[in-house]
């Protein structure tokens, strides 16, 4: 081994690292100001964000436990059985009473009442129907026994949940344009800062998804629904982009260590539905997208 060569090489490497450190330090805050740009572009983006604001409900531990819960065992109505998976029984993820959270208002794209049950089939991950949603207007029954063959890592602890309402803004991924730039006067959006977009655990209903990875989920939903594969090297056809506007986030379920719920590597499950299907109670036409680290 050429020892002097290695030493010189390491020296050069150290020098380069130092140069990058200096450049990075100067490039980043606090030298970069987020002061708003005046003019029509700023106004356009602000107007767009205001127009697109949707309510979201975070699923938080319930003060007075009711029907809605994450994990545990489903309280399926009589006559309804645990759905079958491709290879193993799907995991039970959550059950939600729609009437309870409709009381929070602003969810008129959902039916007035009914209960939804979400199951997830690991074997179908990637398919639009990997998340299996059951909808019922019937009264719930007692807890259903877990079917034999349900893997241990897909049996979750139970948490009864309540709802906390927040305004939700679309991310730059959803919008398809970078708004985490200097274009927005954040003083105008102080009230949105209460909405959780960070790395905290986020189970939610409605609003916009908190993406872990790149991509426009509404567009991905439309591709999945059509049974097509998106080519990221090609622009999205305008007709498809327009059709994608119909998709609404119904449920977002995060990994949650307290429930022994880990989707791959701290991933998330996102269930989408078209507003018109949801309104008429057709929960058989959902698209589920998964993301992980």
């Amino acid at each position, binding site marked *: 081994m050429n020892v002097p060569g290695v030493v010189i090489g390491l020296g050069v490497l150290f020098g380069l*690292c130092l140069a990058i450190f200096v450049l990075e330090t100067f490039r980043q805050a606090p030298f970069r100001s987020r002061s708003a740009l005046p003019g029509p572009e700023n106004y356009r983006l602000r107007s767009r964000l205001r127009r697109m604001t949707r309510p979201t409900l975070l699923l938080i531990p319930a003060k007075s436990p009711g029907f809605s819960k994450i994990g545990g065992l489903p309280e399926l109505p009589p006559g309804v059985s645990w759905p079958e998976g491709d290879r193993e029984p799907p995991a039970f993820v959550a059950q939600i009473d729609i009437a309870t959270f409709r009381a929070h208002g602003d969810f008129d794209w959902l039916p007035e009442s009914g209960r939804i049950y979400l199951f997830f089939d690991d074997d*179908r991950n990637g398919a639009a129907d990997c998340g299996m949603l059951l909808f019922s207007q019937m009264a719930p029954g007692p807890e259903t026994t877990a079917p034999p063959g349900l893997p241990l890592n897909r049996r979750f602890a139970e948490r009864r949940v309540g709802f906390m309402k927040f305004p939700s803004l679309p991310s730059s991924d959803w919008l398809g344009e970078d708004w985490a730039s200097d274009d927005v006067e954040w003083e105008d959006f102080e009230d949105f800062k209460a909405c959780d977009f960070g790395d905290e655990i986020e189970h939610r209903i409605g609003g916009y998804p908190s993406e872990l990875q790149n991509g426009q989920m509404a567009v991905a939903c439309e591709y999945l629904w059509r049974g097509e594969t998106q080519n990221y090297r090609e622009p999205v056809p305008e007709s498809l982009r327009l059709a994608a506007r119909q998709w609404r986030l119904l449920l977002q379920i995060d990994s949650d260590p307290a429930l022994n719920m880990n989707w791959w590597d701290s991933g998330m499950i996102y269930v989408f539905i078209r507003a018109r299907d949801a309104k008429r109670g057709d929960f058989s036409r959902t698209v589920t997208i998964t993301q992980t*680290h």
Partner: protein
Amino acid sequence: MAASDLALAKGLLTALGKGAVKISGPHVWRTKPWDEAQGMRKWLGEKGYLKPGEHGHHGLAPQNGWGKAVPDFIKNQPWNIKGLDAVTHGRIHGPYTVDGVKLPRFNPVERVWYGTPTWTKPAATSMTGDSVRAPTLAIEGQRR
């Protein structure tokens, strides 16, 4: 100097040119939109480590499990992130269905192969000889 050593050096220089390390924070995977500085995912995209539509896979230190003990400013850096399409990423973690076809989970060797960052391939070659490099690059070429 072997060709593989040159490849390693080239890889290092390319990485340094892109900004091999995000030095100033935050180093969390994603930040709130109103945060002053962007999170690691956006930064990796901006620097070209993640192409449009690519997922960032934590290749060596996972986000969960034992990776929880690794600070974000270490595990969310480019050295640990491999840009993957959704299908490859899905198959590292489990079976994945694409266009109605169910694909099995990668076996452990494939998981290491596809899931570890590209820089580890020439590094492995440097240590073990050029024979490893050819198939690595061939598979990478097929994927791109």
